């Protein structure tokens, strides 16, 4: 079962094609990107993408594996977390 919306968190060294390659992968998996934020924090590139994965071709674990593989190729740390977890922690 896929969570409805997930945050894809990417961090590492800034380089060309991060947004392009991550969003292409999400597109290929039939996920819809609803929000993107990015920033350089303490010299590290940090990006979060909020994606609707309810029509995703694979489950969250499958999506996570693909994104982590891509992250490894690019030397980036990629993490996929359910929006519900972030909301529970960050909203009273």
């Amino acid at each position, binding site marked *: *079962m*896929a*969570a409805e919306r*997930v*945050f894809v*968190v990417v*961090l590492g060294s800034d380089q060309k094609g991060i947004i392009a390659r991550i969003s292409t992968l999400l597109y290929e998996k039939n996920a819809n990107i609803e*929000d993107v*934020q*990015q*920033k350089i*924090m303490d010299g590290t590139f*940090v*990006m*979060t993408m*909020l994606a609707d994965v309810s029509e995703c071709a694979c*489950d*969250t*674990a499958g999506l*996570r594996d693909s994104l982590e593989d891509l992250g490894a190729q690019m030397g980036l*740390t990629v*993490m*996929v*977390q*359910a*929006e*519900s*977890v*972030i*909301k*529970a*922690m*960050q*909203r*009273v």
Partner: protein
Amino acid sequence: MTIALEDVFETAGMILFENYDIRAVTLGVNLKDLVHPDPFRMAQAAGQRLGQWGSRLAAEAEAVSESLGVPIVNKRLSITPAAWLIEPCPDQNAPIILAQALDQAATEAGIDFVGGFGAWVQKGSTKADIRLMESLPRALSVTQRLCGFLNLATTRAGMNLDAIARLGELLLEMAAAAPQGIACAKFVAFANAPEDNPFMAGAFHGPGEADVALNVGISGPGVVRSVVERHPDCDLTMLSEIIRRTVFKITRAGELVGRELAKRLGVEFGVVDISLAPTTAIGDSVGRILQAMGLEQVGAPGTTAALALLIDAVKKGGSMASGRVGGLSGTFIPVSEDLGMIEAVERGALNLEKLEAMTAVCSVGLDMFAVPGDTPAHALSGIIADELAIGMVNHKTTGVRVIPVPGMQAGDSVDFGGLLGRAPVMRVNPFSGEKLIRRGGRLPAPLSALRN
């Protein structure tokens, strides 16, 4: 409303860099209906039920962890206290037959530990309680995943010194029965044991529980340490506020995981235990939190006060986050499982007496500490009686998990491996309390027990 990048990053960072995880999901399973005079029949039925629930728990916990992106480290089961299950079984071997069936079921289902091999004897022992107590050295050494407990004191009933005197001897037998005294790491002696505790070794499924209930233990020493380190100069009022906010967040994630997992299993969601539970991973240490608060080492003057502030902030933050806070919900200060604690003992900053003082303000007692293998039984009984007296008088849970390591002396070090960590062997006060322990009898309940 969009969640700010910083907030998303903070949550991700807790897992990526600060060892945040769900330490244990523990499914409590009622076995009372399986009581039968034939211990083989009872044990087989118990094993079967645990096997079924265990397999489902392991699979669903994995699925929830993957779906939410929050690691779940241990999957555990707890059962109706085993002494009640063997009540009608006069067979002396009944406890061992049950122990082996439970252990086998856990292994086959991929469950880390089964808790509840214990008895309530704070006021007196039934014949079955005694059979179970006497079986502990063997039961905990011929099994791998079984955990045992005894509740030896309550605020309402007082303390059973006869049982504690016998337990001292049994602990030495237990220590001799398996390498490095490891069986003792799977046993805890309690005062005021909670019936819904998800943490081992003391988990069991109490008499007030439903057929099945899911309890969740979260872990966050690394997260709290990190936030305290980021505020090196604020005063303690502000520090309390900062810790409260952080614990609120980690408890909310625990609550969400518990709710989701209980829903999938179709069972009652029991409690979130908000205890800070350290591991030997670097930084995932309650000792290091206390150091970050301003102590050179744990044990330095101010340690008990620092711990009191920490546990108070943990409870307040956790209670705000979940209406189902329960279990132990204290702060674990196990010696062997916490690098900051190990270091404090090795550097001579922390001794057994100061450790005992610390447990007066924080659950859960003297945990995972090693003493010399030649420590007399009456000294072990005395250590347990002292610690349980703190719990009994102060209306709180305290426990003792002590490992007398055969062949080792104070200053030696024993490595248990894995989550159990490495324990420096601590010095025990050489003066004797043997006469006191030999008196036996019952320590009366404190006056504060008379509340009706």
